[in-house]
């Protein structure tokens, strides 16, 4: 069945690392959800619950064991440049400058040099990388690297940005900095963002909805709608209620 509306729909997604899984072998099973265009969704859960696997399946990099992913009415069968991915390890091309890293996707599609230059220069300025455009990845700090990786997806004009623990390797200060950066980007560029994290506050600050994944309950994914006034006051009681709810969920999962 083909759906016409914009957004991502996952129907009965299952995944297992084995070919003929028994009850115990599923990482998640029969999970369904819908993401509207323009939403900011976080996936949170303990390690091993399949957050990254979920993101890889949605991006088309990994085939699900069962079920399907439908993007804008069409089933996702392989990686698609409309589904841009930002990895935790940045995955920049070390032999290319910041500018050429950002232009990488544009150059693949045979655009004219002029068009590529105009577009990359615009992105470089908007994400604060103009000064660093001629540097190579090894000359950048972690935060700048991740900015470049995000800019690379923005330049490609993907409607969806899938981020797999993008700030996991960054220090606290840079992390806060990058959180507001992503927040701005999602508003300014009107992206639909799927964001995997294990950082509770980060998920609440950034998201419209938080999906709580679980190791023990493979067939259920709790959902928490975040309804906070911007700018977000992290000392408000509402914020702390959300926080408590998520932490309780995570604590149920802890197995020593």
């Amino acid at each position: 069945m083909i759906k016409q509306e914009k957004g991502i729909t996952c129907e009965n997604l299952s995944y297992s690392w084995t070919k003929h899984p028994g009850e115990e072998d599923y990482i998640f099973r029969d999970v369904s959800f819908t993401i509207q265009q323009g939403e900011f969704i976080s996936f949170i859960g303990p390690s091993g619950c399949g957050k990254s696997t979920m993101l890889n399946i949605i991006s088309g990099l990994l085939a699900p064991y069962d079920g399907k992913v439908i993007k804008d009415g069409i089933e996702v069968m392989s990686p698609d440049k409309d589904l841009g991915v930002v990895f935790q390890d940045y995955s920049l091309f070390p032999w290319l400058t910041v500018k050429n890293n950002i232009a990488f996707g544009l150059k693949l599609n045979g655009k004219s040099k002029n068009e590529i230059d105009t577009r990359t220069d615009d992105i470089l300025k908007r994400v604060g990388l103009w000064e660093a455009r001629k540097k190579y990845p090894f000359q950048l700090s972690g935060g700048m690297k991740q900015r470049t990786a995000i800019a690379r997806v923005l330049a490609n004009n993907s409607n969806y940005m899938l981020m797999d623990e993008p700030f996991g390797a960054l220090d606290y200060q840079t992390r806060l900095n990058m959180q507001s950066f992503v927040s701005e980007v999602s508003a300014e560029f009107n992206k639909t963002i799927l964001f995997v994290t294990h950082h509770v506050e980060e998920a609440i600050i950034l998201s419209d909805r938080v999906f709580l994944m679980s190791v023990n309950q493979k067939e259920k994914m709790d959902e928490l709608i975040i309804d906070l006034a911007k700018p977000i006051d992290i000392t408000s009681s509402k914020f702390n209620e959300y926080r408590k709810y998520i932490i309780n969920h995570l604590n149920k999962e802890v197995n020593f």
Partner: protein
Amino acid sequence: MIVLKKYKEAIIRFICGTGLITLLVLAWEMAASGGWKYANIFPPPSKFIKQLSNDGFKVGLGAQAASVQTSIISSILRVLTGLFIGLISAFLFGFFVQSNIWLKRFLMPLIRVLAPVAPIAWIPMALVLFGIGNQTAVFIVFMGVFFTLSIAVVRAIEIIPENLVNSAKTLGASKFQIWYKVIFPSILPNVFTILRLNFIAAWMAVLAAEMTGLQDGLGAIIMTGRNLFNNEMILMGMVLIGVVGFLFDSILKYIQDKFLWWDKKSRQ
């Protein structure tokens, strides 16, 4: 002074390197003039270097004789041709093998069996196939580098970070674009390091091939010296082999540092 600081390490290395060689040569000269008993087998540089400035110096006999310059150039060209064909073939082979798991399962064991066979072991067959000439020398160089480089290419592809390829895929790269825009540049520094190590093997292989009776080349100088019981000629050949090899490796190292730096730097 700033310039000096920048090249400080290079200057120190140059002084240390040439210093030790000079000391050894001096000791050698002193021993020879002091009546060392093996001075006939190891004539000192002051004796064999003169051979070079002698305009009439030729490798070989009569009409077939070749000058030293021709010999050096011939050896270099043979090594370069063999290395070049070996490198291109290794890239093609590595890409081919990595494109399908079954190709890898069938072909890699064969390559790994052939790799340890010393290139000079192929000389008898090569002589029958190609006769005495350039083709044999190039073939021996090729056999000396192809298998190792192939293994290097295959391994380098295996260790490319998965997400580097994944990010290219999600940016819209086709299969072909992934090969030449991501995999090829990713493995280049790695493979070039192996190429540098292999250059030394190739350099040794070409000399062995040239000793089979080629009329020119550095190996031929040694062979001629041996036939004439001329130790001065042999030692001069050895020095030329060492110096040309060193210069060549320096060029390769320069290329590596200047143009293929990203493997080392991106690990920092």
